[in-house]
């Protein structure tokens, strides 16, 4: 028989819908594979955001830190030209002609460009709000960029400052680590 859906699934669709409402996107995507009737509930409710549907690798940016060349996009020919915004320079206004754009971090399709967060696939970009610490500190430590849309619409920038005073005890009794959190969808809400 073609549609031999077991009739023993004990929960009616509207109860399943109420349960699935409590799941975060990632778990919701998993629940879609449980059985046909659950899949129907997930699809019908339109609860799964389309941007969380299967991801494909569209290309890879190569950015040489502090080298005099802008980042380059390598993408497979199947992607076709122009699908992904490869020229990141067009998103960012360079203060001086000798400034070179560098990708400081990337996560799940977003690129972190110091002043800007860019999604090259959708051509969306948003300015990174002013850092409460001097932006120059980025060069005095390590910057990490994190974004997982299946867990939260916020991206986070973590900054771990390099310790200057070599004579001091290690680890120091107190060491500040900046964690900056912004909402990508709203485009720059400081939390």
């Amino acid at each position: 028989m073609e549609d031999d859906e077991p009739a023993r699934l004990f929960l009616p669709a509207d109860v399943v819908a109420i349960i699935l409402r409590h799941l975060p996107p990632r778990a919701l995507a998993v629940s879609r594979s449980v059985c046909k009737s659950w899949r129907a509930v997930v699809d019908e409710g339109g609860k799964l955001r389309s941007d969380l549907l299967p991801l494909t690798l569209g290309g890879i940016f190569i950015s040489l830190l502090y080298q005099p060349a802008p980042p380059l996009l390598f993408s497979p020919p199947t992607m076709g030209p122009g699908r992904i915004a490869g020229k990141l320079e067009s998103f960012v206004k360079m203060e001086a002609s000798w400034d070179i754009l560098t990708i400081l971090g990337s996560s799940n399709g977003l690129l972190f460009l110091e002043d800007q967060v860019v999604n090259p696939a959708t051509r969306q970009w948003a300015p990174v709000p002013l850092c409460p610490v001097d932006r120059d500190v980025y060069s005095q430590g390590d910057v990490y960029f994190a974004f997982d849309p299946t867990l939260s619409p916020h991206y986070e920038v973590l900054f771990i400052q390099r310790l200057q005073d070599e004579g001091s005890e290690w680890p120091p009794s107190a060491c500040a680590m900046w964690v900056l959190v912004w909402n990508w969808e709203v485009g720059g809400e400081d939390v």
Partner: protein
Amino acid sequence: MAAPESGDGNNGAARMVTLISSDNTRFEVEAAAASLSQTLQLTILDGGGGGGDGIPLPNVDSATLSKVLEYCIKHAPAAANGGAPNATAVDRAELERFDNEFVNIDQSVLYSLIMAAHNLEIEGLQSLVAKKVADMIKGKSPMEIRRTLGFPDPTPEEQAEMNAHMLEYGWAYE
């Protein structure tokens, strides 16, 4: 004909109603508690369920109904205050503690409860149990979810379909 005694249910002894489970057990409970059920509320407002005649609930057995009523009795005062803006933090913490303990029960009871809450339209209870079930699902693979919820093992055809979907959603299983 019983005189409708609703209207000003605030004075005197609280009005009681009788609910009858599918296995014919009678439960006498304050109307305010039973009214957490949207389904029962209408009947109760019409003056039903009092005196000798009870409200039959053919879909709910006595074990489940007593559990449902335990929830309703605990939550009725807060519900009467309309979300209780004047509830103290202690009250709210107590309700939360009660809720957490309340759903810490056998899985078969959870199922009966969510079905009863659905049939009786008790929104708070339905949401409470749904959240508990969602917590049981979170972080599990589709196969583990099926086992957790006691689904029958998938047919080979279903299994193939599940595998195809899991491939498609590879990122979700990292």
